[in-house]
């Protein structure tokens, strides 16, 4: 099956990736190959079959409402590439005010 290059480029943006223009064609070929292989699934009759998304039952057992120790904030923040006081720091998303 063939894939529209612009559709794949849209997907690259959705996946928050950047792919160099030289690699895009190779990637399109690979993804096309895999999806063509997966075309075989269309021949399977799935009338009346429910999809399986989870491997265990859907019950959500409640536990006792006891407080547990979480991880100290410092230990979490120490792994952050950039931080400011007790916050993760990211590039600004609003224009200067």
């Amino acid at each position, binding site marked *: 099956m063939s894939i529209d290059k612009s*559709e*794949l480029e849209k*997907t*690259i*943006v*959705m*996946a*928050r*990736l*950047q*792919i160099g223009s030289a*690699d895009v064609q190779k*990637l399109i070929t*690979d*993804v096309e*190959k*895999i*999806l063509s*292989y*997966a075309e*075989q*699934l*269309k021949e*399977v009759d*799935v009338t009346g*079959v*429910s*999809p*399986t*998304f*989870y*491997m*265990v039952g859907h019950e*959500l*057992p409640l*536990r006792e409402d006891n407080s547990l120790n979480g*991880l*100290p904030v410092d*230990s*979490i923040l*120490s*792994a*952050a*590439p*950039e931080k400011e006081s007790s916050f*993760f720091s*990211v*590039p*600004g*998303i609003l224009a200067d005010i």
Partner: protein
Amino acid sequence: MSKLQTVINGGIDYIAKQVRQKNISAVEVATYYLERIERYDSQLGCFMRLNPHLMDDAKKMDALVSSGGADKMALCGVPVGIKDMIVTRDLETSCASKILEGWIPPYDSTVVRKIKDQGGLIVGKLNMDEFAMGSSNENSSWGLCKNPWDIRRVPGGSSGGSAAAVAAGLCAVSLGTDTGGSIRQPAALCGVVGLKPTYGRVSRYGAVAFASSMDQIGPIGKTAMDVALMMEVLAGHDIADSTSLRQRVPNYRKICEESIEGLRVGVPKEYFEKGLDVRIERLVQSAMDILVEAGASLVPVSLPHTKYGLSVYYILATAEASSNLARYDGVRYGYRHTSKDPLGLQEMYEKTRAEGFGDEVKRRILLGTYVLRSGYYDAYFNQAAKVRTLIQNDFRNVFEQCDVVLSPTSPVPAFKFGERIDDPIAMYLLDIYTLNSNLAGIPAISLPCGFVEEEGQQLPVGFQLMAPWLQEGLLLKSASAYQRATNHHLQRPQLT
């Protein structure tokens, strides 16, 4: 043979017993493995990094033994290697990815905590394909891991380091993770035993997520008995993993001693079709004969949806991965793109991920994002999820006719570096016999059943047994009976 070597050869239960009884010290055992790592691992590339505190931990264990505090520790002084996909407190965990390089977790995964609680010693972190995506260990950002039987060949993957390290005697036992065969396929290619437990049997807390509905942690060891002891330590419900099952953990070692008289072994015709190396087919046939001699009977069975497994797997697993790997955004941990020019948030995300992820990971994220897009969701994702139900039903039906299902683990023995890396389908086909059990959530084990010769080198071959949900005992019992009757698992590679 030295006393130490006799203890090491005795298996992990015996090592722990000898350390508990002070016939040998944890320090002596740890030194034995560290010396081997120093001697052989610069060539093999199994360990990405060692636990710098191993010797201190061993000394502490000996002190605990002396004070009588280790009497009940099942893994007392046993050196365990951990796949880098599994979180270890204060020891870098990178999933062999640049995007997590340098991440020092502030907590232990449940499995690592359980190993430590039972006196096990963490040797270090084992090489793997980046985020467990691969079947040859060639996708590691850290570097290649080589097969100890022939260093020109791959160890399999994604838990390549975990299997190669056990085969080469660089640790007594190891942990791997298995999403589509990542424990069993490298175990087969390296001549060791690898078990993928039932989905939910072992806690996934602290296992970095790839495809959450398929991932399982499991042990790799030299014998079924070693793997049985590890399962007694690892299995059980965990409050930190809501998908872990509330089921009693049996005494697997005791089950290993039971006879397999009357065991019905299903042989699915779909697992012996084209693509399977005839030499492997012959060895798997002789494994069946051995089981029959031990009292089992063979039952021809059919799993008609087997051939769709690969497509289902690569749609569902990549979809789940695209969502799970969204967390690597350069904000909370790991790699972040830095630039002198001010960047917007979106651009920071994109550059971080473009530079941090390897090609295979990008390919899978992209494929997963694509099949989840509205407009494609029904055609791909939903259809695959329905066929997954049919694959599960196949197993449910077959297990009414037999107790376990037997098949090859891998269609080919260890292959050379670079042979398949350029063709994703050729690489994905290596998991053709293993991934259906992940789709169904059932347990499966791979164990050695002989060797084939390639260019003058002996390469190990494995066969696989699959069992109904929570019947790991049946797998271990069958594997033990097989290993009592054979000596393939006792063969070791000649290291230089």
